């Protein structure tokens, strides 16, 4: 897989983990929250959201549970597991390093 996709996928994973760290949420909620927090810059379509959610679940970083939504509909709620919390910390650290590095390169006066 080309590294750019890797980065992208890894980024989506990190965004989902970070979002779920606040509270358990269903898929729509996650997409909405990311869109709102990023001020409409980041929009995650369902085409990448659900494969990512399932992938994270199979990896044991998040877990799912059926519950009822705010308007009393049946919905699948995802929450962070302990392994997920650790993974989030790792992702954050990696992101920090990466963004600092990119900033260093990009902000160096030409």
């Amino acid at each position, binding site marked *: 897989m080309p590294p750019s996709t890797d980065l992208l996928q890894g980024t989506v994973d990190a965004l989902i983990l970070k979002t779920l760290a606040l509270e358990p949420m*269903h*898929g*729509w909620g996650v*997409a*909405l929250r990311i869109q709102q927090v990023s001020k409409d810059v980041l929009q995650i*379509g*369902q*085409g990448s*959201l*659900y*494969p990512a959610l*399932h*992938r994270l*679940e*199979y*990896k*044991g970083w998040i877990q799912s549970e059926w519950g009822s*939504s705010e308007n009393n*509909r*049946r*919905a*699948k709620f995802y929450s962070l597991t302990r*392994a997920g919390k650790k993974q989030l910390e790792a992702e954050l650290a990696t992101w920090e390093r990466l963004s600092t590095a990119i900033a260093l390169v990009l902000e160096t006066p030409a």
Partner: protein
Amino acid sequence: MSESLTRLRFFFSRSKSDELDEELQFHLEHSIEANIAAGMTPEEARRQALIAFGGIERTREQTGEQHPRWLLGMVMQDIRYALRGFRRNPLFTVTVIATLALGVSATTAVFSVVDPILFRSLPYAHADRLVSVGLVQSLETQEFTLGGFFFDWVHNQKPFEAITSEGAVSQECDLTERNPEQLSCARVLGNFLSTLGVSPVLGRNFLPEEMRPNGPDVALITYGLWRSRFNRDPGILNKLIDIDGSPVRVVGVLPEDFELPDLQPADVIRPLALDETAQRTGNGGIGAPMRTFARLKPGVNIEQARAEMEPLFQNIQKTLPSQLRNAFRHDFRLKVRSLRDRQMQDASRIAWILLGSVLAVLLIACANVASLLMARGAARQRDLAVRSALGASRIRLAWQALIEALLLSMAGAVAGCVFAEILLRVFIAIAPAGIPFLGKTHIDLRIILFTVVVSLLCGALFGVAPALQKPKPLMLTGRSQTVPHAAVRQWLVVGQIAASMVLLAGGMLLLRSFWNLQNQHLGMQTEKTLTVGITLEQQHYATAEQQMAFFQQLQTLLQYGPGVSSLAMSDSVPPGSGSHVFYSSLGIVGRPPSEGRTGGLVTTRKVSPGYFRTLGIPIVKGEGFREAELNSSEQFIVLSKRLAVRLFPGKSAVGDRMQFDRFDSNGVPKPLWGTVVGVADNVRNGELTGEEEPEYYTLRRNRSEDWDSNWRRTEVFILRTSLPPAVMFRWIRAQVAKLDPIVLVNIETLNQRVSKMAARPRFETVLLGFFAFTGLAMAIIGLYGVISFVATQRTQEIGVRMALGAGRFNILRLILWEGVRLIALGGFVGLAVALTLSRVLKSLLFNISPYDPVSFIGVVLLLALVALAATLIPARSAMKVDPVVALRHE
């Protein structure tokens, strides 16, 4: 760790595709609601949401691919699909599996037989540097050394790191304790084990003081004996066991895989205590005979070692007694060869030939499988094109083809394993004695793995190749004018025909050679004749008188038995080889034994007067031995025609006197004079395949000196009888038991005895013949497959041609030509290769040249006929094509 555990949990849990649908539905509804909230009409909100949502099916698939079991599910799906395909086309499936099974089983079985001969690692440290070194001569073709010069070699040799010996013969010895047991005892020098790089698993090697004559009597026992006799008791060390009635101390146990380098049987190893001075002078300056082995210094090869030993070899003459020097000059050679060659003798040549033929069979089988898979691939171009158009990726199609090839290969491999076990049992059953380790041969897992991998590879390679090409959209129309891979398949068939041509030529040469062997003129009568071989024990029949008495009593008992019309005694039976002397040791009046060349070997047998009558050997001049001569003090001789012509050219020979050597019990030759009373017709000697030697017979009289020989206590009774062998066998055993109930008796019909000598050529012929016909059958299947495929592909063309006026005969010729091209090319290449390779069979062939024109012409005709027949069948059906049907073919 925990991650893989989680994955494992999901692997076994049921996948919930409904849940995913519900989730997606939920997501969609929320987006519609969000759109409505943003002020759209419900219809517009739904439309926009669906557009934003994208392909639901694709999301479903992508989510499904995240599941740990997704890959397995896909494989299972492919397997089900493949199995459905196999069921629809059973002929194809059975042909592929049978071809693979045949290839795998033949290769595995043959490889299991030849592996210990060619590739087995010898149970010694750095065995590649071990050699067998010694003298050879026409009477003893296995290297030996003698105590008289051995110490010169030990002190003066340069090429070897170490040199050691074992006594020339492993002797029978008896464990004379409770439950007595007969064992084999070998005697070895003190540095024997260290030279071979072997150390005892328990206890120690011999000490220097144990190697002196009259030193402490000690022994090392083999692991096998330790297990069977002493229950692996470590307390065996320093215990005394009774060997031949005297106590011997066990000082060690040899490793489980230990064997003597010359593969002689041995249960107990004892010191060969040699006194240097005694060896130099004892036994007429000859010393004890030994088998000598040595370890080459690093970097010294066998040729160099031989060259460096040559001066020492020349020096031997000085140590020899004068009467042996002449023979030494003309007949003795120095021989150094690798231990493996020493062990395997000439088995390695036939092993290589078998291996080569079976690999050819495997290649033909693989080519067949490849060809069949490619035909299937080509026939499915349209199917592939459809699937590709529906969105299957190239990898996905190749994966499907690979699964199919793997399934077929695995089925073939399993069937092959079963068949290999059967084949191996058949091999062992028909194999002659003297193929090393055959008894221990078993199907080797490594070999099965190897052949399975080869068949997998050829299956995978040729099965996947057609699928890897992106099918052309044109294929969808079904107008498959271009036949992909047809050229490759035709080349494969050419290769198959060439390979089977080579196999057939080899098989045919061996078959004709075997025919010659079986139908050669033996010079004697073998029907209704029994042979009774009896070997007397040293302990009970120590003197010549005792032996003579036993055999004469038995003769009296057997002579007047039921249906016995004639009886004779001899020390050996033709066509087996008898004793040998050099032609030069024979002398006639006026010409004493010559001092020059040895003149080659002469066979000699000691016989009773009934010998020629019983075996039906015609006396061509003079007469045979008479009963009256048994008590004479004179010696009487009958010559074979071949010897008479050579000794007495242009004379009658009968009545002439001849001098010959008789060896006494110490092996020292003593010259005797005798009278030639007759000349007998030539009889085959030197077994069935050896060179025919001149021969003379001496009468074994009723005098103990004629029975005096310490190394051969076997006498063979030859009986001509009208009763069935089974009846006679029982009766003869009863007679022998009357005299001595425990003596060893070996009863066979003379035909069985002769047939046993043909066991080896029979084995070679049967095996190579089997491979040749298997190869031919598979090549013909391949040819048939390709031609009928081509004919089917050209149905439409044929229809057009016929509509334009081509006659049926033209069509037949058109298709036939496709086959003839392949047959001619393959046959030509095969013939050229066969003629180049047939030289390697030379040593296996009897009375036939490796370029025998009859064999080669026969093989060419056979191949041409069968191959043409295989072409004719599809060509004929192409001829019968109805043009109307053919043109509507699409």
